[in-house]
């Protein structure tokens, strides 16, 4: 299987033919379509090694996240970045390539923080290994973490080694009825104190604070923080899985934006419905496509950025700093000289 993938990439490179990497296709509708023949990685699957005592799991790119999470859970462990599994279909390779992290990200780290090492095929079909299975490794440039969020444009991830963490003994949610401004302020005040937090999200006038840890610590925190129990069961699970109504496909002329902002940024574009996660660091915003320019400008002036994540009108690239764009193009050519991997349609 690996040799097939390698042969296909070598040939594509030789012929300068673009290829698009396909795992399970679970994120269709969430990213711009890409050019070229499909390179199917989904069957290059399977957990290669899992040592619970080592807190490290190694798996091939096509392995379903759901399978990994289930195997980890059976040993009382988890992928702490909580990557969304898109209805159980998403693969490890796709989760790494997109680099999306879930509600626990501000406390447990992002997807890239859990990656210890990768095996990749670069744009010439060379099989390369960076990082490894150890916790600390500063040998060479950190090309493994560079792969996370690169959307497959720097290499085809074939295998990955990830750090895992113990599942918390207890997890509970407290709900506070608060307007957006107060919710952002309270969430950040809680973040600045040593509470056992693992989630802080606001929607529809309700701030939900998730507490994780041992039973005694969570009980004490719950008592001191106050708030109400959550009547909606598994709300954070649905947030992680991106199955809340906010993530539904938008209608014509509407878009769903992902805003990355400083966590303490006051309410931005508050007239549009939004779901605030990461104590303010990530905000999902539903708005008419006509507001695209205003949304982008607001996010940038607040020190962040906005990406149109779902719409029927395509995925216009967000404006970027030209120096960084040029540098990224050179980095891309360093790994994929003929730029055959996951080239966006129209590029």
């Amino acid at each position: 299987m690996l040799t097939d993938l390698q042969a296909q990439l070598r040939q594509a490179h030789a012929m300068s033919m673009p290829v698009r990497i396909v795992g399970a296709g679970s994120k269709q509708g969430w990213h711009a379509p890409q050019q070229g023949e499909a390179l199917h990685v989904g069957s290059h699957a399977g957990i290669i090694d899992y040592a619970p005592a080592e807190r490290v799991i190694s798996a091939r790119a096509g392995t379903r996240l759901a399978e990994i999470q289930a195997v980890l859970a059976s040993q009382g462990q988890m992928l702490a970045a909580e990557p969304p599994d898109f209805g159980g279909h998403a693969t490890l390779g796709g989760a790494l390539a997109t680099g999306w992290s879930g509600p626990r990200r501000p406390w447990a780290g992002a997807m890239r923080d859990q990656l210890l090492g990768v095996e990749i095929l670069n744009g010439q079909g060379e099989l390369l290994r960076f990082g490894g299975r150890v916790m600390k490794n500063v040998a060479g440039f950190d090309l493994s973490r560079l792969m996370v969020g690169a959307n497959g444009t720097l290499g085809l991830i074939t295998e990955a080694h990830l750090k895992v963490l113990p599942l918390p003994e207890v997890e509970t949610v407290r709900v506070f009825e608060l307007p957006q401004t107060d919710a952002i302020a309270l969430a950040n005040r809680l973040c600045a104190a040593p509470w056992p937090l693992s989630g802080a999200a606001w929607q529809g006038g309700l701030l939900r604070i998730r507490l994780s840890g041992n039973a005694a610590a969570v009980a004490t925190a719950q008592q001191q923080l106050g708030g109400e129990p959550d009547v909606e069961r598994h709300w954070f699970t649905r947030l992680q899985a991106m199955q809340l109504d906010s993530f539904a496909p938008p209608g014509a002329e509407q878009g769903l934006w992902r805003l990355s902002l400083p966590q303490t940024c006051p309410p931005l574009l508050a007239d549009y419905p939004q779901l605030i996660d990461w104590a303010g660091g990530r905000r999902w915003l539903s708005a008419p496509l006509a507001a695209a320019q205003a949304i982008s400008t607001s996010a940038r002036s607040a020190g962040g950025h906005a990406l149109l994540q779902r719409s029927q009108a395509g995925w216009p690239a967000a404006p970027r700093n030209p120096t960084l764009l040029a540098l990224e193009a050179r980095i891309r050519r360093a790994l994929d000289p003929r730029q055959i991997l996951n080239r966006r349609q129209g590029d």
Partner: protein
Amino acid sequence: MSEAFLSALRHTLPAEALVLDAERLRAFECDALSAYRALPLAVALPGSEEDVIAVLQLAHAHRIPVVARGAGTGLSGGATPTAGCLLLGMSRMRRLLYLDPLARYALVQPGVRNQAISEAAGPYGLYYAPDPSSQIACTIGGNVAENAGGIHCLKYGLTVHNLLGLRAVTMEGELLELGGTLDCNGYDLLALLTGSEGLLAVVTEVTVRLLPRPQLARVILASFAEVSHAADAVAQLVGSGATPAALEMMDGATVRAVEDFLHAGYPTDAAALLLCEADGTPEEVEADIVQMSRVLRAAGASELRVSGSEAERQQLWAGRKAAFPAAAKLAPDYYCMDGSIPRAAVGRVLAGIASLSAQYGLACINVFHAGDGNLHPLILFDANQAGELARAEQFGTDIAALCVSEGGAITGEHGVGIEKLDGMCAQFNAAELGQFGAIKAAFDPQGLLNPGKLIPTLHRCAEYGRMHVHRGQLPHPELPRF
């Protein structure tokens, strides 16, 4: 050519920001890997990002190599000057520009000392987590360049996990503004620059993430009659539900050296000691201490001591922090290694090191970040005895190879620099090294920024070098090393 460059440099920076005379240049001829020395052509001490841009543009135009340097505490020669280079000393850029206690970040210039950040954040109940042993002196710019670790990275991560943003300048003088939020737009260049050892860009500003100081920390000192039992305990602790804030190991030889040096009250009959720390809320710490104690006893610990106060915790740590200076009393010279291995392999690798020690006829003591699998074997020798240096080097080579064969790495936290260039050939194949070269060229096509570091040329692969300490004369002897 260098005359024209120096003349232009004098017009770019004020006289007090330049070091040109041979006597004062001596102070910059090496970092803490003092076996390697070279005089730079000149030292520039920029006071601002504008200065850095101007100096780099000038050096680029004149094709003068540039080496950036923080406090010069690095152990792998990352800041060793290349002959004829311009050394860029970042020590004057040492202002903490902004600290936001609610948003929990600090914006600092690269010359700010690691510990100064936590000191500034302390009044708000916050701190900066990565704590390399040289933290009283080392700078955040150097920490970013080396992706510095420390005792507490088992729970709180390395430098890369504790950064929010960077500003950095490429060799051509282009300013890169990276990160800023928890999500990345475009490639994760912040992660790529972290640990790039000054080969890709010069860091001019760092946004570090601050964490709330845990309410409580307690440490357990566990003694073992067998090294293998202590190694098993490490694997079992990591596999248990509790994450130690720190998990350090010292072998019996180190314990006795520390006792002679400091009288820390460690049990000198132990074959190995573990220091296992729990932090968090009082409830978390209490539960963790109970669980960790149970695991340690089950693994065969003969004695457990748990700190009952902050003073006692500091006292239990004092011996660990004195291990390197204590080692320096044992022999005229030592080599410090920096191998990284899976934690399940700790026992096997320690046994392997012990048999190598017998084979080479050289003592080797072990004191290290066991919870991370990051070994720092210290090979003791006497450079004045004919052949000992070569034997010690070969011994070190075998340890590095042992780490790689266990699926580990040649360096866990000290960096490659010039010291471990040869080990890179054991770790990576030619295609992988070629990929590093291509990334380097994407940032610095002329290869002017910190040349000769990190990426070996293939013909170099036969030679090996290590941190060499002669007669206990560590560079920066005032700094703890652990």
